[in-house]
């Protein structure tokens, strides 16, 4: 019935072979591989390890777990596995980085003056939910507008909520919301969902979920909190006001590149460009997981990126060893 999660450790020393920024599956996988290569490895995470898999309830498509595994449990297992191979995991927010020199510098929130130094850096900061960019969204964020299903779904017991989006996340979270909410309406701009077929089947079969296709949310209205949304049918070009208690927005991702925009090369959408060895345009700097320009963003592709980056970093460090 209860789940009890444990967290990180403090760092004693601030020189490392590899520093991994971000503790989602890509970062944790890099930590496992770097630890096994006996590199002195530090992983920095600002909130909780697992990244976006902690924002979903179950992972069903990660090979080897024939029964669905809780995202939080999978994250915990990866974290312990990384620690078993000697990687240090420290909870702190990275405030700035200097990556272009041979000695990379990483500044964290709780040690302002002394940077952590490292010979290689693996960027694994992931991505965060994209905003809808409609009137009322910002005003009512935290007042009925939410981007986090597991965080906020329990606060909508017996309520009516709107979900925006038609991808895997939107449908998974709609299913999770039905545990609490009395009704969930999924608003999607196309005439069919983009989510994986098995998720679609489940959502279609769930009596608490209905769909509003070919439609977008144009405005979020309320007083102290969300009270209604304006939904426009794109075919008819007509908008109508729908009363609701909350709106959950799952319309894609934006890369978390605030720290590194001026350090490494990114594409037009802001995702970091790498080659197949996960190298960025800066020597000794690698990018893995959702922050990287790629076509499939899944746990299984994230952990693959992590392994490749760790081994690339290992080759880079051993071939450029000053020792």
């Amino acid at each position: 019935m209860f789940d009890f999660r444990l967290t990180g450790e403090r760092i004693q020393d601030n020189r490392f072979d590899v520093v991994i920024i971000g503790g989602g599956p890509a970062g944790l996988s890099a930590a496992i591989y770097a630890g096994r290569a006996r590199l002195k490895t530090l992983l920095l995470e600002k909130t909780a390890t697992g990244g976006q898999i902690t924002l979903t309830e179950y992972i069903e498509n990660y090979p080897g777990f024939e029964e669905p595994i809780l995202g939080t449990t999978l994250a915990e297992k990866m974290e312990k596995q990384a620690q078993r191979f000697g990687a240090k995991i420290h909870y702190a927010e990275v405030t700035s980085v200097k990556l272009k020199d041979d000695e990379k510098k990483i500044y964290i929130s709780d040690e302002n003056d002394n940077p952590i130094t490292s010979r290689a850096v693996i960027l694994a900061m992931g991505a965060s939910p994209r905003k809808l960019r409609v009137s009322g969204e910002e005003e009512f964020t935290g007042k009925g507008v939410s981007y986090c299903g597991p965080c906020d779904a329990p606060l909508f017991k017996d309520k009516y909520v709107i979900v925006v989006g038609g991808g895997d996340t939107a449908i998974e979270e709609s299913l999770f919301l039905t545990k609490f909410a009395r009704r969930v309406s999924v608003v999607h701009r196309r005439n069919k969902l983009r989510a994986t077929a098995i998720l679609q089947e489940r959502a279609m079969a769930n009596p608490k979920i209905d769909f509003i296709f070919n439609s977008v949310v144009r405005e979020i209205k309320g007083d102290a909190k969300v009270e209604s949304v304006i939904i426009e049918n794109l075919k008819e070009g007509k908008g109508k006001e729908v009363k609701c208690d909350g709106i959950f927005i799952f319309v894609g991702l934006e890369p978390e590149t605030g720290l590194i925009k001026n350090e490494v090369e990114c594409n037009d959408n802001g995702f970091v460009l790498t080659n197949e060895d996960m190298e960025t345009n800066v020597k000794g700097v690698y990018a893995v997981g959702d922050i990287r320009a790629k076509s499939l963003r899944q746990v299984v592709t994230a952990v693959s990126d992590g392994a490749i980056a760790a081994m690339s970093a290992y080759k880079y460090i051993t071939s450029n060893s000053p020792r």
Partner: protein
Amino acid sequence: MALLSKEDSEFLKNKFEEELVRKITLVYFGKESSDLVLPTEDSTECRYCEATHQLMEELAGLSENIEANAFDIDDEEAEKYGIRMIPAIVPLVEGEDKGIRYYGIPSGYEFGGMIETIIQLSSGEGSRLSSESLDALSKLSIPISIDVFITPTCPYCPTAVMTAHRMAMASEYVTSNMIEANEFPVLSTQNNVYSVPHITVNGRYAFVGALPEREFVEGVLNAVMDTIRDKD
């Protein structure tokens, strides 16, 4: 049956052995039987009292430096610590109250946060807040009570709780309360909690989100700035 797995208990036992320095007392407040109407602001039964009490006893069993003390909500000790709802936990360090409160069971992500709080309190290293934050807090001249509403499934929430707790460690004017929103639905509704972490100060809305330390401290102080000025 034990709440903590054998593996986690073993891990914590070693961690406590390595890191605990000063004695921690976990003062628990609850109600043994559920057939009475309780003097709380919220629900009339305490669904998680038994589990919370058991969790405190299990933690105490893992280290000589942790003890658990249980009291009924009607006991005068509850008044001494200003306990308003149950289950509640007040961690003391060498018997000293640092103004830290847990309302509701610290499960899920909050459990790790509570362990970190215990270790930090016991280490005697102080709040670990930045000098800017300490400066800002030193200007306080009235008591402030920070409520951080959370859900156990929220991965961002422990960061917010920890920052509020550190403010309590740093200033005797600050009380920091973790409130599990599901267990206190009436209070959560009164405070318009629709996203977590949701932070109020002296009952006033401050902000939503696990902000970085500087913004967090600023947000908390801004929420009560006018009342602080009034008292000057």
